[in-house]
């Protein structure tokens, strides 16, 4: 094959290959196949795998939580307070686990979140009923020891306060049961234990009422000299309620302790009119009814309630680039009427999966700097209102392009150094292009290197055989190895190319040389011409 033709074919084939490959080569999938999907399906081999346990543990956890209500109610009923404390601690731990799961799985807009809220309220109710039952037992013991006088009245007042409180707590607990059980059943969780707990707690509260009735104080109990009232009786997050009252016969300066949901909310004193007042700002408490009572020394007020109403929230998010890899996320968390939500946890959900925690300050503003890898990212701010009388909210999703670390100069430096080194090496060894003869030392057999003229006698020989003898003679004269074909000889000695090509036709195409041609070839072979 002629070198020129073979080069053209090679070039054409190479161009064709390059063109075919070029169409595919620009496809980034070749280099970083990630999250490949179409409208119909996704390619599992390019999708990130994750732990399967998260969602699978929701229903078992619901089961456990519901089961714990039953156990806890029973231990309260049988007055095994030590076991009840342990059960409550475990219940609280499971509830926290469930809260985290709801956030992680992004379930805040589902009925699972409703279940979570009810469960939290149930947990608080159980804690209150446990404390109240314990205190009630103490009062019963005290009543036996203290037979008359102010101390007995104090016991009766406190007992009455506890009775009312337990009743309120139980009523709220029982009211939540149908909806909570419905959600649980929908997901296949067993709500039997929870449903039974309602009956058991009814008995616990019933026992408290019986004891008070036994004292003749349940319905017709003497009014406590320590009064309490709340205005207004309901409010939303950030609003103020006024809790006040008087202590008939109380001495100015007498300490008064105000309890909200059995926890000390404020210590104050009676003023000159034997009254007290506490402006209560609704903060991080659950929505729903809350119990309030006050004590002054051993005297308990009656129990009163106020309602906290749930409010919607708004959360904003602004993302600003700090540098090539860091972005600053800021925003505000407010209620629907514009009140800032203070010191509240805010989650930044990056790329739908990764959760980063931050918190609002005293103005309801949060700020957090995130360091991200290069490429496109999505960020959303979320407020999961667990423990607040607020509804969850989430910001708009912000999509941003992070430039990422600039390309490291080292690979480029290394490539340049390698190229320079290779250049130097090739130059030193001698570039093949610059010395093509070195590749094939026999490529330029100089005619002068073999000037020995062979003797050839072609007289009387058939023309084709004569031509063969002349070919061998010329080849010998030029010092070309005998293994070379006529075509190779033509390439090696271009000055005699016509001779060799003519001989090639004689040898392979069967042509017969004329006498004149033979003479001409003889002259050339013997170098006479």
């Amino acid at each position, binding site marked *: 094959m002629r070198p020129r033709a073979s080069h053209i074919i090679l070039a054409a*084939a190479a161009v064709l290959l390059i063109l075919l490959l070029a169409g595919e080569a620009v496809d980034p999938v070749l280099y970083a196949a990630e*999250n490949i*999907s179409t409208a119909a399906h996704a390619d599992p*081999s390019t999708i990130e795998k994750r732990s*399967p346990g998260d*969602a*699978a543990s929701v229903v078992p956890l619901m089961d456990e939580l519901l089961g714990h209500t039953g156990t806890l109610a029973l231990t309260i009923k049988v007055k095994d307070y030590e076991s009840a404390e342990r059960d409550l601690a475990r219940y609280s731990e499971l509830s926290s686990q469930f809260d985290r799961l709801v956030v992680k799985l992004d379930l805040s807009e589902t009925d699972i979140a409703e279940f979570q809220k009810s469960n939290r309220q149930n947990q608080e109710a159980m804690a209150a009923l446990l404390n109240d039952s314990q205190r009630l037992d103490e009062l019963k013991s005290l009543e036996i020891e203290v037979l008359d006088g102010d101390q007995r009245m104090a016991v009766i007042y406190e007992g009455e306060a506890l009775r009312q409180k337990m009743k309120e707590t139980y009523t709220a607990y029982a009211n939540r049961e149908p909806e909570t059980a419905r959600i649980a059943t929908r997901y296949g969780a067993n709500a039997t234990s929870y449903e039974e707990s309602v009956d058991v707690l009814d008995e616990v509260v019933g026992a408290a009422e019986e004891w008070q009735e036994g004292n003749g104080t349940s319905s017709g109990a003497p009014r406590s000299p320590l009064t309490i009232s709340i205005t207004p009786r309901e409010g939303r997050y950030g609003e103020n309620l006024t809790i006040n009252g008087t202590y008939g016969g109380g001495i100015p300066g007498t300490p008064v302790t105000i309890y909200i949901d059995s926890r000390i909310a404020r210590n104050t004193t009676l003023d000159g009119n034997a009254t007290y007042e506490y402006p209560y700002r609704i903060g991080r408490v659950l929505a729903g009814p809350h119990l309030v009572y006050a004590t002054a020394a051993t005297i308990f007020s009656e129990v009163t309630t106020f309602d906290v109403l749930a409010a919607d929230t708004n959360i904003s998010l602004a993302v600003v680039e700090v540098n090539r890899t860091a972005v600053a996320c800021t925003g505000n968390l407010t209620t629907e009427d514009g009140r800032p939500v203070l010191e509240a946890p805010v989650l930044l959900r990056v790329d739908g*999966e990764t959760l980063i925690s931050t918190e609002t300050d005293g103005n309801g503003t949060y700020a957090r700097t995130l360091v991200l890898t290069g490429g496109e990212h999505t960020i959303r701010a979320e407020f999961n209102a667990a423990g607040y009388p607020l509804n969850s909210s989430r910001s708009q999703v912000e999509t941003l392009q992070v430039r990422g670390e600039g390309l490291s100069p080292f690979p480029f430096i290394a490539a340049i150094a390698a190229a320079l080194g290779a250049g130097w090496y090739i130059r030193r060894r001698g570039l093949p292009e610059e010395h093509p003869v070195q590749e094939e030392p026999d490529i330029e057999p100089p005619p002068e290197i073999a000037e020995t003229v062979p003797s050839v006698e072609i007289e009387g020989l058939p023309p084709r055989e004569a031509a063969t003898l002349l070919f061998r003679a010329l080849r010998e004269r030029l010092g070309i190895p005998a293994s070379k074909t006529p075509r190779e000889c033509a390439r090696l000695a271009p000055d005699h190319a016509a001779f060799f090509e003519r001989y090639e036709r004689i040898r392979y195409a069967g042509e017969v040389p004329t006498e004149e041609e033979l003479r001409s070839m003889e002259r050339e072979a013997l170098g006479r011409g």
Partner: protein
Amino acid sequence: MQRETWVVILVLLLAGGALYLHITTTTEEFSRHNIGWNGTSNLPAEDVRDLSRLDPGSTLLILAPDRPFTAAEVGYLRAFLDGGGRIIIADEEGAANPLLVDLESEIRVRPGNLSSLERDYAHPGLFKGYVVENDTLFAGVETVLLNRPAAVEGGEPLVETSVFTWDDIDGDGHVGEGETFGRRVVCAREGNLIVLGDASLFINAMLPENTKFIENLQPVQIDAVHSRTGSRNPIINTLTWIEERPPAVAALAALAILPVAWRFGRKRE
């Protein structure tokens, strides 16, 4: 032969191979000629173009149907079912519903964007389905990896999703307003007719995920006329047409051999 000639032949072979691959494959979804992840080239099945010649007692897979069946073809399918054959219709776009009506089936495919929380992959549409009823198709299979399936209504449920499945109407990947959790049936049967709301189970990328299920399917014939398993590429269709006709193949082979024979004959002379 000179060194250059060998190189030329080698490069030409490579170029020819690349060109052949290029023109005889496609990237069309579900195509039997698509060797990529979303094709069905690796599904072991025999292509069937004439529904009147189905093997009685065998299994026919109608995968991602997108063309109507004639009354005669529906008749063949009914006869096939009556004769003990099993038909599996895998569809996630609802295109199979007219055929289901014609086959007097109660089952319907309800397209949607089913997503699940209970999954091993980050993609919400890639999740497990649970086998809830015995069937030879699911013998030894407890779960099936589904890939953006559609819900199926009616019939006897064979595969259901977990309770944490929702129709992601807004496509944001999480359960939002108006989207509720609940179990969905993704495969149901009615006699010998099985409707699977996920044609993606048969794409190349999914075959290694559900090996036992694919094994249970065998031997299977696949409808190559009414579904997206074909191709719109005219070169592929021409080659397929030739492959299906032995005389055409013979003629083509002769056309290829003749020049070579002529060349050798001339040399010998």
